[in-house]
């Protein structure tokens, strides 16, 4: 199944700038490579990544075949309230992965 790595602080002070790092296992097949049978391996990429904090979107990314396999992305956000930070990846061939972490804001 989908394998996701998330690096986020467990607690943060209110108003603190925190870094969220995510990595998901995915081949990000470009659609340009020839396969063993001489045909082109069809494109299979993650198209969109969205991060939400208690349901409010805080960051999003549109991906392309130029993104490396196992997409890694790191971004920042200001810790406002305790809650759940959810990450959602969607892409070709009905790919969908969701993962979340809880962050306590004190």
């Amino acid at each position: 199944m989908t394998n996701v790595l998330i690096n986020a602080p467990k607690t943060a002070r209110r108003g603190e700038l925190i870094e969220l790092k995510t990595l998901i296992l995915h081949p990000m097949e470009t659609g340009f490579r020839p396969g063993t049978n001489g045909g082109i391996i069809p494109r299979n990429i993650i198209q969109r990544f969205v991060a939400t904090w208690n349901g409010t979107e805080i960051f999003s990314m549109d991906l392309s075949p130029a993104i490396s396999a196992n997409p890694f992305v790191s971004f920042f956000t200001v810790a406002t309230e305790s809650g759940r930070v959810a990450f959602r990846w969607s892409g070709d061939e009905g790919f969908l992965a969701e993962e979340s972490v809880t962050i306590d804001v004190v």
Partner: protein
Amino acid sequence: MSNHHRPTIGRRRALVRAGGFGLAAILGAVAAREASATPESARDWLSALAKGEFKEGKVTIRAPEIAENGNAVPVTVSVDSEMTDGSYVKAIYVAADGNPNPGVAAFEFTPASGKAEVQLRIRMAQTQKVVAVAHMNDGSLFTASREVKVTIGGCGG
């Protein structure tokens, strides 16, 4: 290319060499067709997302000068902004001018992002320029570019 003035090279060898050059030329043409993005197409791709005039400044791209492996080149794009409700970065667009397609990624931010900085890993087919455009909330656009030399391309072809 004529070999008439070089008597040491036999006819057969000359033919083999000519064949080799021909093959190299064909492979070169194929490679050039696959890597179809150009600085112009990269700019067009960026202009389609961010309409207006690009100004230099505010944007910083951090990337290795020489990337040994084009399959995963770490790139950091940051934009100098207060990230307050009055002045923040709405989006960052990243393009590369030597890949089959110019588009790399688009990011969206909010004032709650606190810092307009993003780190990602890019595939690069060959030595090329990474171009980033920052779309500010007032509609102004800032750009920066950085060349990355790629030793082994990451197209997997």
